[in-house]
């Protein structure tokens, strides 16, 4: 019997071309209105002419192991699952928006239609059926690798060991489950 899963993702920014297919796939999968999105792609330009460059950095809920959004929730609606996913019990959410402000990654949305906070849930209904999350499956350049951190044979575990990825916002002590190769 292997250990229960601990879901995580590796994002290789050097492969990202900024097509935003992941954003659309996510909105489609989660039935979001166009003004709400669980993931986004930031475009970063740097350098001085003629030596300059740019990169695309996809950002979403980091499913932190020390999630500030869970700590600040006054009703216990935000919680951390044993499989690493940070989720919201929308029934218990009163819409105080404290968690939105506590998130360094700006990963949380208020649902204007329903009045609760919702967010990336690693497409839990898909992974339970052994299907990759929508953003991972749709990415045309293979930026995203999703897998089980507790399975030493998963592609994710191997890549994390080899590529030595980093966390973004590391000094904020959030201990994210999303690993980045900033290239």
């Amino acid at each position, binding site marked *: 019997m292997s250990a229960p899963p601990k879901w995580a993702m590796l994002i290789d920014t050097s492969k990202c071309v*900024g097509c*935003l297919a992941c*954003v659309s796939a996510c909105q489609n999968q989660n039935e979001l209105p166009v003004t709400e*999105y669980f993931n*986004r*792609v*930031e*475009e*970063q*330009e*740097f*350098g*001085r*002419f003629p030596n*300059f460059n*740019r990169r*695309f*950095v996809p*950002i979403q809920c980091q499913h932190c192991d020390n999630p*500030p959004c869970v*700590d*600040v*929730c*006054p*009703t*216990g609606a935000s919680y951390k699952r044993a499989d690493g996913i940070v989720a919201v019990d929308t029934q*218990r*959410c*009163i*819409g*105080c*928006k*404290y968690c*939105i*402000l*506590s*998130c*360094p*990654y*700006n990963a949380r*949305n*208020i649902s204007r239609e329903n*009045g*609760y906070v919702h967010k990336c849930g690693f497409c839990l209904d898909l992974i339970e059926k052994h299907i990759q999350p929508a953003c991972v499956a749709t990415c045309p350049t293979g930026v995203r690798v999703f897998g089980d951190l507790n399975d030493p044979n998963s592609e994710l575990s191997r890549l994390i060991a080899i590529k030595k990825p980093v966390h*973004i*916002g590391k*000094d*904020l*002590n*959030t201990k994210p489950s999303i690993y*980045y190769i*900033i290239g």
Partner: protein
Amino acid sequence: MEPPEAEGGFPGSGNTIVIKPSIRKRAGMIYWNYLITIYLFSAGVSAGAMFISITAGFINPVKYERIVRTGAYIAPFPIMAGMAGLILDLERPWQFWRLMTTIELKSVMSLGAWIIALFTVVSIIYFILNLPKNYLRLKTRGNVIKAVMLLGLILSTGVALYTGILLSTLTARPFWNTPMIPMLLFISAILDGLAGISLALYLKPSGGGERAVLETEEEINNNKSFINTVDFALLFLLILSVVVFIIGLGGSTESAVSALGIIVGGKYTALFWFGFVALGVAIPFAATAYELFNQNHRAWLNAMSASFALIGGYVVRSVIVNAGQLTQAVLY
């Protein structure tokens, strides 16, 4: 795709790194609006009035009777209006009762909800205990009053302090994530309560009957000198808090320095320096110092400095609430 943020300039023109959101950037949105500012302000006035009233009562309930009474009459009401604002700011206001069925020990908001609920109850009891004797048929023992006062002192400190801690514990928001925010808001809250008492004392028309007999020259001087002394000391501490806050952010991380920019050259520069520092701190400080050191009590000067202090108290909360939301930690 939207055009880059104007502040970064032309990407190739320097060593600066420009982050362009490829889709609408969620940072820089206001989630907590003026309702939260009103709440922070009214909670501050209530907590401050209660704190000053009880402190004066512990020092000398006979000598400072008017301060004790006025503070007790003010305390319950602003916070009730503030709580209404707080509930209306929820996306699901009718679900607010969930705050009162849970205690999340790690959530400052959960603890705060309990603190303000208890504070309101105790402030109402304190209000009733301070009604003139002919209104009050109850026979209360001195020990009961002392216990209510002690509880009220603890709870008013809690209310005045937790609002700052609510903001300062968010690492995502560098403008808030400094220990000076709770100190600044605490001192400002006590000052706002004092200003409320001061305004109520001096704007009250000197009526006839029983009150007129009580209002001797000596009584007025006693109350004024208490208010001016506390005002002067707290305004001095507030000035130090502002200085330390600015030095603290300015000498910290890249996130903190860029967050500080919003009040030093950025969007809220004029509001912070003129609305808060000049109007709400410097002018009341000068007026209080003049009164205190010249023993020259003028009702209009007192009323003006108290009104300015209240305006400044609102402005600083507005600036803090908005600036914290418009700035964020640098991630990569």
